[in-house]
């Protein structure tokens, strides 16, 4: 019998790329925490535990044409869409060269036009109607483009989720709604956020298919998002996909999660860490040797070191540049 990734239509090369990107994402994330704890960067929000969902989803798209509307944990997805480690470090250090915002926004507020990563804000879920709008434009222009929008399960309780999903349903737009369900909205557990068994139960109310899948399995996520993208491109409309994961860190570097969840709970979740299980998978599939793994870690370390040094030394935007880009014709000083 074929290996799981082959069944899903993934080549050996692609699946190992996915693994490498997951590892890169994790190591970058870990470095950010170190930088934060040593006082070098003021803030971290991270995606640890959700990389499989993010990377599985991103790889299922056409990363040269489709649009990504990520939320703040989506380091894996934006890396897969072409943002570089250096660029993410520039954002962490809030430097002028940060392509997301030139140091104007907090880290995790992604945006990069050339890679069709749509600029995001802090108020959650506003990106959901945007994804519908982008898909509407694609439909009008008869371009085979899909928009993928992500959000937390807590955020799926905002009105904008409902309105955006409904709009996409009515107009049968090529949108994929990806809910990264990590069981918590900061300190609020799933049961106090939602009474439905699954977030995907909401799909039927918008006339679209809904799926709940294991967010720790990048191949399962790939497969499900790929099917949704294919459907979308065939003009069959949107899909709601919920990936079940766990947030392996506190909410952000400002949070202490011991106030609301037990160490045991986190420990158990860490046993399901998608990085571990995917490593096992690629090894057992004969795609990753011990040496290559060592080498890969070295390469990644090097990339991250270089990016950190660069970003640390890069200049801030000038204070007066705060005045720029309010309107198309704002030069600053107005």
């Amino acid at each position, binding site marked *: 019998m074929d290996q799981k990734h082959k069944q899903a239509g993934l080549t050996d090369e692609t699946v190992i790329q996915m693994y490498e990107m997951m590892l890169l994402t994790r190591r970058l994330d870990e470095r950010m925490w170190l930088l934060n704890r040593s006082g070098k960067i003021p803030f971290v929000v991270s995606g640890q535990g959700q990389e499989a969902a993010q990377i599985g989803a991103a790889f299922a798209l056409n990363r040269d044409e489709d649009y990504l509307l990520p939320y703040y944990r989506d380091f894996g997805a934006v890396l897969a869409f072409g943002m570089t480690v250096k660029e993410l470090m520039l954002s962490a250090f809030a430097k002028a060269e940060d392509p997301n*915002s030139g140091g104007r926004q907090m880290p995790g507020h992604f945006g990069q036009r050339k890679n069709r990563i749509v600029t995001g804000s802090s108020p959650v879920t506003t990106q*959901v109607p945007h994804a519908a709008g*982008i898909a*509407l434009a694609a439909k009008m222009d008869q371009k085979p483009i899909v928009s993928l929008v992500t959000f937390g399960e807590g955020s799926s309780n905002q*009105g904008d989720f409902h309105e955006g999903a409904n709009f996409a349903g009515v*107009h049968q737009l090529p949108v994929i709604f990806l809910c990264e369900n990590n069981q918590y909205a900061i300190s609020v557990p799933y049961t106090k956020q939602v009474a439905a068994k699954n977030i995907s139960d909401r799909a039927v109310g918008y006339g679209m298919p809904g799926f709940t899948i294991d967010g720790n399995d990048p191949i399962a996520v790939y497969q499900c998002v790929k099917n949704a993208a294919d459907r979308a491109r065939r003009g069959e409309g949107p899909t709601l996909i919920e990936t079940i994961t766990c947030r392996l860190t506190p909410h952000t570097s400002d949070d202490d999660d011991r106030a609301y969840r037990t160490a045991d709970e986190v420990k158990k979740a860490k046993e399901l860490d998608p990085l571990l299980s995917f490593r096992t998978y690629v090894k057992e599939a004969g795609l990753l040797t011990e040496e290559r793994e060592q080498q890969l870690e070295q390469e990644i370390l090097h990339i991250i070191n270089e990016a950190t040094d660069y970003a640390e030394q890069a200049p801030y935007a000038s204070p007066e540049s705060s005045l720029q880009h309010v*309107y198309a014709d704002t030069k600053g000083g107005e």
Partner: protein
Amino acid sequence: MAIISYIEAVTMALREEMERDSNVFILGEDVGKKGGVFKATEGLYEQFGEARVLDTPLAESAIAGVAIGASMAGKRPVAEMQFADFIMPAVNQIISEAARIRYRSNNDWHCPIVIRAPYGGGIHGALYHSQSVEAIFANQPGLKIVMPSTPYDVKGLLKAAIRDEDPVLFFEHKKAYRSIKGEVPDDDYVLPIGKADVKRKGEDLTVITYGLSVHFALQAAEKLAQDGIQAEVVDLRTVYPIDKETIIESASKTGKVLLVTEDNKEGSVMSEVAAIIAEHCLFDLDAPINRLAGPDVPAMPYALPMEKYFMMSPEKVEKAMRDLAEF
């Protein structure tokens, strides 16, 4: 040059822009087959088809949010809010998103949308179909707020709004829709957003206002002229960001300023106008800056006597102008 109504100028501008640029499209509640509850989009569904004149679900945050998304993908959406009063559910999309997209992305992304909405009272619309909502948005850098008074201005400014690279709120006075008529060229023209317009020259006092009240001020000015008092009438046209220069120039010239808005008094855009004058023209003033506005109650009641009590009128403006002239 034909004489057409204020609302016909809206439709004309929309039609011409849709003909000019295939990226322009309209979305909103009942804008399609019905042609809008006020008929502003009448005939456009027939001319441009369902794909470019979209009847949306009843959900204003989605209307704004979808427009924003489409604009980021290269479209030129013109969203209609059925009444300005119903823009409230979309405030998050307008303020947190539309207004901030260019700035927060350091000029990487931008958001060229227009949101049209009928506002204003005097049509028996009660609390929720009469409001002036501009003040809610008139402190949000990144937004532009246009509120035209004449059919000529409507056409030129709506076209400018559609071609603008940034989000524009375009508030149309619903009482003006059919009651105000004027000459409008068939040609293509745009008027500058951000510039006030002196609708009448005068030396003795200045009235600064916008929207329907411009007409009240002009009527009153004619009456005062019969008594030899020459009032200058400044039509703000854009209420945010405001045209300081024109305000300062006129206030300095006449030294007596009356500010008129149909909105509640406290916290209206006229507060900003007063602040600008107080900051720049203090020593040119011969009289306190006078604001004439709606009372500070939530919104216009339904029953006619109460509505009239709240609503701005030529008589109220005239009285305030005479009082000021005599100061």
